[in-house]
C-alpha cells in the first residue's frame, strides 16, 4: 500500500507547473480567446517540446511511455492555469485510447502526435460535441458499437460556442467514407476508455481550477478593504473559503485513485472515475460559487480573472458524462445485490 506519488512524478509536476504558471498567464488565455480558432500554435509547440504531447505515447513511437497516473498531476496543473490547448484530451484520452487500439493507426499517428505536428480530437456519443474537432488533423470518435479514427477529410464540423471561450466545441458529421476501425466488444471497450479517461481529465482539471479559485479569492480578499479592514478578515468570508478547502481536500485522493485504477486497468475503475468526477466537479462548482461571492461585484465582471476559471469549471461539470451519468454508475454499483460495501472494501 503506497498512496504517494514518486519523487520523479512530483518533480516533473513541479517543472510543468512552473512552465505553465509562467507561460499560460490569464493574459495569454484571453489572447487565445480572441483568435478565430482559439488556439495558440506557439504554445502547442512549446508543450510538445517539453514532451507533454507525447508523454503517454510509448517510447517506441517517440514518446515518454508514461501512463494516466503519471499524467494526472499535470492535468491538475492544466486546470490551475485554465490551459486552453487540448493537452489533457490529447495525452490523457486520445493517446492512451489510440495505444489500446494499436495496429497501423497507432504506429502511423502516435509519433506525429508526440511531436506536436498532428493535433488530435477525441469525442464520444455520450457527449455529442467534440472539443477542437475543426482544429484537429485526426478525430477519434467513439460510439458504443463503433469506433472511428478519421482524418480531417473524413468528417465535417459545426461550431457550437461555449460559455468558456477557451472551449471550441463542434458537432461532427462523419463522411460517407467513414468506416469504423473497431466494432462489438472492442468498440465498447474503447468507448468506455474514452469516457473514463475524458472524465478523469475533467476531474483532475477541476481540482486545479478549484485550487486556483481559492488562491485568487484569498489574495483578493486579503487586499480588498471594506469597513476599514481586509474583507478576508471577516469570518463569513473565511468560512466560504474554508468550506471550499474542505471539499477540495477530500476530492483529491479519489481523483488519484481513479488515475491509478485506469493506469492499472483495475476492476471498478469506471466507478472510481465516476466518484472522482462527481466530487471534483462539485468542489470546483462550490469554489466558483463562493469565489464570486467573496469577490463581490468584481467577481461578476469580465475584467477580473476569476471568470476564466469559473466558466471552465461550469463547462467541465457536464463534459464526458454529466452528473446524472456518473451518479447512475455509482448507484448501480452500491445498490447492486451483493455489493461489497463498508469497512475494508475500498482497496479490495
Amino acid at each position, binding site marked *: 500500500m503506497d498512496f504517494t506519488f514518486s519523487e520523479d512524478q512530483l518533480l516533473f509536476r513541479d517543472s510543468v507547473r512552473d512552465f505553465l504558471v509562467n507561460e499560460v498567464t490569464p493574459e495569454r488565455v484571453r489572447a487565445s480567446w480572441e483568435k478565430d480558432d482559439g488556439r495558440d500554435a506557439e504554445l502547442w509547440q512549446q508543450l510538445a517540446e517539453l514532451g507533454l504531447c507525447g508523454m503517454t505515447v510509448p517510447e517506441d513511437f517517440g514518446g515518454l511511455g508514461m501512463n494516466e497516473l503519471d499524467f494526472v498531476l499535470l492535468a491538475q496543473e492544466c486546470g490551475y492555469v485554465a490551459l486552453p490547448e487540448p493537452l489533457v484530451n490529447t495525452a490523457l484520452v486520445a493517446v492512451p485510447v489510440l495505444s489500446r487500439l494499436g495496429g497501423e493507426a497507432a504506429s502511423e499517428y502516435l509519433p506525429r502526435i508526440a511531436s506536436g505536428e498532428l493535433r488530435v480530437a477525441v469525442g464520444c456519443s*455520450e*457527449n*455529442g*460535441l467534440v472539443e477542437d474537432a475543426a482544429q484537429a488533423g485526426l478525430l477519434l470518435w467513439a460510439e458504443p458499437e463503433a469506433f472511428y479514427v478519421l482524418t480531417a477529410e473524413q468528417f465535417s464540423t*459545426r*461550431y*457550437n*460556442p*461555449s*460559455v*468558456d471561450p477557451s*472551449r471550441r*466545441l463542434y*458537432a461532427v458529421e462523419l463522411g460517407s467514407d467513414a468506416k469504423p476501425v473497431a466494432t462489438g466488444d472492442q468498440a465498447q471497450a474503447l468507448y468506455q476508455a474514452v469516457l473514463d479517461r475524458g472524465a478523469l481529465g475533467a476531474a483532475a482539471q477541476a481540482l486545479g481550477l478549484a485550487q486556483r479559485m481559492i488562491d485568487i479569492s484569498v489574495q483578493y480578499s486579503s487586499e480588498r*478593504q*471594506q*469597513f476599514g479592514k481586509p474583507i478576508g478578515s*471577516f469570518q*463569513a*468570508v473565511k468560512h466560504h473559503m474554508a468550506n471550499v478547502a474542505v471539499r477540495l481536500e477530500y476530492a483529491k485522493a479519489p481523483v488519484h485513485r481513479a488515475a491509478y485504477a485506469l493506469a492499472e486497468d483495475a476492476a471498478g475503475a469506471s466507478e472510481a472515475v465516476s466518484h472522482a468526477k462527481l466530487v471534483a466537479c462539485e468542489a470546483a462548482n462550490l469554489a466558483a*460559487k463562493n469565489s*464570486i*461571492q467573496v469577490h*463581490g*461585484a468584481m*467577481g*461578476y*465582471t*469580465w*475584467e477580473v480573472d476569476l*471568470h476564466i476559471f469559473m*466558466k471552465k469549471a*461550469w*463547462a467541465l*461539470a*457536464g*463534459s464526458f458524462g*454529466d*452528473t*446524472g*451519468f456518473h*451518479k*447512475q454508475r455509482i448507484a448501480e454499483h452500491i445498490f447492486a445485490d451483493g455489493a461489497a460495501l463498508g469497512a475494508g472494501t475500498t482497496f479490495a
Partner: protein
Amino acid sequence: MKLNFTEQQNAFREEIRTWLAENVPAEPLKTFDTEEGFQQHREWEATLNKGRWGMVTWPEDLGGRACDLIEWLIFEEEYYRAGAPLRVNQNGIFLLGPTLMEYGTQEQKERFLPRMATGEDVWAQGWSEPNAGSDMAAIRSTAKREGDKYIINGQKTWSTRAVWADWLFGMFRTDPESERHRGLTFILVPLDTPGITVRPIPQLDGLPGFAEIFFDNVEVDVSNRLGDEGAGWSVAMATAGFERGLMLRSPARFQETARRLVELYRANQASADRDPGVRDAVIRAWMDAESYCLSTYQTACRLSQGGKIGAESSTNKIFWSELDQNMHGTAMSLLGARAELLPHAPDAQGVGTWLDGWMFAQSGPIYAGTNEIQRNIIAERMLGMPR
C-alpha cells in the same frame, strides 16, 4: 383572512392580460446591455406608458394607476406570465421614482417624473465607489458647493445601465471634513455633462451591464439636489429600502422560473432522473417559489394595513437570490453537457436562456448589499444579537 381576489382585482388582471396579449412584441427584444437592445427597451417603455402600464404604482396624475400593492403583484404576475420585456427603466420606477415622490420638490417632480415615465430619461445608479461597495459610508466622491452649482469630482462604479442611460442619481460628499454617514448629499446628474467619462464594465456574459463613471470638475446646478444638503444618507437609505424590499423582486419572476424548470424537467425526465438530486431540487424550487409568493402577499397585505417593513426585507433578499441561484443551478445540472452552450449555438436545442439566467443569478447574492451584509442585519436588527 380572505385568500381570493375581488371582482375589481380580477377585472384589473383581465385588463392588463388583454393589453399585454395585444402589445408584447412577438420577437423577444435584444438584451438592453447592447445599444440596439437598449433602444428597443426604451421604445417598449414608451409603449407601456401609452397604455398607462408603465408606472402602475405611481399616482394617476403622474401617468400611473395608483395601484395598491396587491394590484401591483397582479400586474407583475401578468407581466411575467406574458413574457414581456425586462424593464430597462427599473432604476427609475422602483428606486428614484418613489424617492422623488417622497423627497423631491414639486418642481423636481414635474421636471423628472413624466420623462421618466415615458422612457425619455433612463436613469443609472451612482452608489458604489471602488472602495465603497458594501460600505456605502466610505463614499469619497465630492460635490463642492460654489454659488448655485456643485462641482463634482471622483469616481462611481457598478453603475447599472449607465452605458446608455441619460441621467444618474447618486451620493456625493458635500462636506469634505465629514466622515461616514454624515456630510453626504443626494444629487441628480445629467450624463452628458462635460467632464463625465463613462467606461463600460463587461460583465460575465461579456456585455457592459454596468459602468465606471469618472467625474472631472463636473458642474451641476443646485436645483438637482434631492433633499437637504448633508441629508443624503437618509434619502439613500429610503431608496435602498425600496430596492431590497418588496418592490424590486416580485414573486412572479421566480414562479415563472420554477414553472419553466418543471417543464424542463418533464421534457428531460429520463435523463434527469439518473440524478435523484435533480427531481428533489425541482420540487424544492417550486415550493420555495410558492413560499415566496405567499409571503410576499402576506407582507403586502400587512403593509396595506399600515404595517412597516423592517429588517425582514433582508430575509427577502437572501431568500429570492438563493432561490434564483438554486433554480438556475438545477437547470444547469439537468442540461448536462448542453448547459455550457451559448443560446445561439446550433446544437443547443432546448437550452433556452438558462445559461444567461444562471450567470445573471450569480449577481443576486451580491448586489444591493451582499447576502453576508444582509445576514448581519438580520442577526443584529431582527434578532438582536450583539454587534
